[in-house]
């Protein structure tokens, strides 16, 4: 199934893109998606510390994904 990935701030710049789609297994969870993304963007491993949101809510690594979910990788926020 397809999910949408969003990248922001330093991650966006590092990746050179802000959004893309990726094909994942039907039973994929957040942690599985991250491992898959690391193949393509090994710098995600170095970064070490970012949060994940699924459909605009913070989500843990066990969160199951569904078709067309929007997954955002969220580096440490610094608004204000």
């Amino acid at each position, binding site marked *: 199934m397809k999910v949408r990935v*969003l990248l*922001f*701030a*330093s991650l*966006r*710049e*590092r990746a050179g893109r802000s959004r893309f789609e990726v094909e994942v297994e039907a039973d994929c969870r957040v942690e599985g998606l991250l491992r898959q993304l690391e193949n393509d963007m090994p*710098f995600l491993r*170095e*970064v*070490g*510390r970012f949060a994940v*949101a699924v459909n*605009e*809510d*913070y989500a843990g690594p066990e969160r199951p994904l569904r078709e067309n979910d929007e997954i*955002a990788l*969220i*580096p*440490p*926020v*610094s*608004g*204000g």
Partner: protein
Amino acid sequence: MIRLTDQPIVIDDLLKAVANPAAGAIVLFIGTTRDHNQGRRVERLEYEAYAGMAGKEIDAIAAEAASRWPIAAVAIVHRTGVVPIGMASVAIAVSAAHRAAAFEAARFTIDRLKETVPIWKKEFFEGGAIWIGDQCGREGGFVDPALAPGEPGTKG
């Protein structure tokens, strides 16, 4: 009330948004771009937001403030894009019958906003640029090549 804008923040709009005849106190917080940070001469800040989620998180903070303190109203606006020195990047207004609640809720709101709302600032300084926040992680994180050793926070 709008939550995010790429235009200069109009303080009077926030004050009007929280005006209430039952309120005896209004506390307004404005975060402005400082001309220095950690010994670096800052030229400007640039803010990027995950707009949809940022709006939801801001609403959630406003709701939590209203549930924890007896306040009349709260208004929150964050600017995105370039914010020049001295200009407001964020403004929070809280009205309440009494000042203690207004002060505490305003302080809570800006503290929480800085923790949870998916907005990022890039600091452009003399000689480089850096995404603020990346550097405070224990695991390091990465920074643009040109930069000085970074610490969090270019803002109040």
